[in-house]
């Protein structure tokens, strides 16, 4: 990956990976307390090259190759944050973040609360997540529900290049801990974007496509699938809106409810398992808050409730256009 250095020309073409790299670089330039630590983040630049060039520019103190131990990485980051630093932790893959869950759940998420606000922990935990990249076992988990279920964490997941930059900058600047979930299958998608242009803040959902028939409510890796499904739905006579939640916590209930009330039909789409997933919470809330505006139950389209399959089978697991359109067809349309 070429080193992403911001040019001053404004609009530029780049990948999500480059946008994330630039966000880290700009955050480290702007604030000396921002420290990056993780496995292979130094000379290698991370296995996805998101930290490419950071050690060269900022030195090994600011971008630290750690021993291979996720609980140790996050626990060390807790201590660094207690001393006034603003650590950005890289977990190498979704499923490799699990050894750090105790630190995340018992300390990172709770420290502000258990010290009555005296010790907020401004830690960003970056986690490449989700499937669709042909990864072998343990490299493709969509793990957002674990984090979203834990009070005290913000859970952010960008789906566009511009959001990748803007939301990561905002996450690093946040005084609350943020689990920043990077959809790895979107790392290499290119888009035109302007790093200087502000994006909507954390906690705000964005309507990526207006529509008049029903809304697909989604986030992260499933956004492009939903946009594709909306395009395909035109042939069936459906004009689908697509809402990108962008952050699961805080959940932008107001925007989601406004869209659902206006259309009366909604499908929640994510690739992680459906049972106990984020979609269950979202569908329940939309039903509770929008019941009298609904023409059909809020449906969910998700991955199956199975361990993530081998890469040659993953396309059967991941929600695709057909599964989404099948759900749309079940939204009790009048004959």
């Amino acid at each position: 990956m070429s080193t992403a250095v911001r040019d001053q020309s404004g609009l530029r073409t780049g990948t999500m990976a480059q946008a994330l790299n630039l966000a880290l670089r700009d955050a480290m330039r702007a604030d000396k307390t921002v420290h990056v630590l993780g496995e292979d983040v130094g000379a290698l630049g991370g296995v996805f090259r998101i930290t490419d060039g950071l050690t060269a520019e900022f030195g090994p103190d600011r971008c630290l190759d750690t021993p291979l131990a996720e609980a140790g990485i996050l626990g060390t980051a807790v201590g660094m944050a207690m001393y006034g630093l603003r650590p950005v932790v890289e977990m190498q893959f979704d499923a490799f973040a699990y050894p750090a869950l105790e630190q995340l759940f018992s300390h990172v998420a709770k420290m502000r609360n258990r010290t009555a606000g005296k010790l907020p922990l401004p830690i960003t935990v970056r986690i490449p997540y989700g499937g669709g990249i042909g990864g072998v076992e343990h490299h493709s988990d969509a793990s957002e529900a674990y984090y979203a279920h834990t009070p005290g964490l913000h859970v952010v997941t960008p789906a566009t290049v511009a959001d990748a930059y803007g939301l990561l900058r905002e996450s690093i600047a946040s005084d609350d801990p943020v689990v920043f979930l990077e959809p790895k299958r979107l790392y290499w998608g290119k888009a035109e974007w302007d790093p200087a242009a502000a994006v909507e803040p954390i906690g705000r959902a964005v309507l990526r496509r207006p529509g008049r028939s029903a809304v697909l409510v989604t986030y992260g890796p499933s956004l492009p699938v939903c946009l594709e499904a909306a395009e395909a739905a035109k042939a069936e006579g459906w004009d689908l809106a697509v809402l990108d939640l962008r952050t699961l916590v805080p959940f932008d209930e107001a925007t989601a409810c406004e869209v659902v009330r206006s259309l009366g039909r909604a499908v929640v789409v994510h690739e992680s398992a459906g049972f106990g997933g984020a979609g269950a919470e979202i569908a329940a809330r939309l039903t509770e808050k929008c019941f009298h505006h609904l023409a059909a139950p809020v449906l969910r389209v998700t991955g199956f409730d199975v361990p993530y399959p081998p890469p040659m089978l993953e396309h059967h697991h991941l929600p695709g256009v057909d599964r989404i359109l099948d759900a749309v067809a079940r939204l009790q349309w009048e004959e």
Partner: protein
Amino acid sequence: MTVLDHRNDPVAAVPGWRPGATAPRTDPAPLLPDPEPHRALGTAAADAADPELLRELYRRLVAGRRYNQQATTLTKQGRLAVYPASTGQEACQVAAALALRPQDWLFPSYRDTLAVVARGVDPLQALTLLRGDAHTGYDPRATRTAPLCTPLATQVPHAVGLAHAARLAGDDTVALALLGDGGTSEGDFHEGLNFAAVLHAPVVFLVQNNGYAISVPLTRQSAAPTLAHKAVGYGMPGRLVDGNDALAVHQVLTEAVERARSGGGPTLVEALTYRLDAHTNADDATRYRQAEEVDAWRAHDPVRLLEDALRGRGLLDEQLAADAAEQAEQLAARMRAEFHADPELDPMSLFAHVYAEPTQQLREQAEQLAAELAAEAEAGSGGHSR
């Protein structure tokens, strides 16, 4: 100039990996603990020790023993929800606090409230976790004392990270993490010590080996020669000390803290001690320990050991005995007075510090609780709303 410089870090000063490179990379001999635990009382070291240090240790040990008694009494009176006593471990608790300067940080576990109080934190604030009205009653930044840590050994990497950050800032700050023998089996202990050694962080780990992790004896916890030997595997020195010898613990910790302070890196200290009381007031230690064993340790009581040493040097005069007793009673009286009143509880504080700004969902839930409280109040005190 970076702190993590290959020229400065012995661990990093390894030549490139190549065939025929010699092993081991560092000499393990200086890292090995002495076969016998370090002792000071009853030796020439005690004769040479500063009399005022010995007096101070004594006053604090006597107060510490009284603190443990009073806290246990408070559980019987329903004033504390639970109390994991450090009775018998007072030498470790007091020496840990005394070995630190104000700018140093203490990372205690749930059994270490005495060390927190010995650092100067008010007993009421130190014990809110165990009273049950607040998770942490003191300001960690203002007191340089981390919250009491209940998940075992998870505070170890915190101490490492804080010490590392202090070193990066060029500050003269050392972190001391306290834990027990059971905690050394946890992954966070291993990861924390490994990070500490690799980062060359100014941190000290004090394992108070009291022989039992609740009911499980050390023999079922570890097959290591001693817990101090574990240090060698990480590339840091391990030190073994008689944990009931207050002067010895103070010496070993002071030396380890000074070593960390002066850029020498981390140290693992294993203090051999004994929990004279049960795990907590809710535990029954007779189910797993023999009375003879407890009696043997009572004969090696840290307060008595120090008393004997003071008497041997003619330092235990009436004045000192009276001062120590009075300080201990003052502390106990303060605890009784502070815990006599019920804590003031604000149910709405549930929502106060979840995030910097509450989410919309939390605001709605706070309204819900406020409505429940209003309904309760309307139904009369103690009554049910429906």
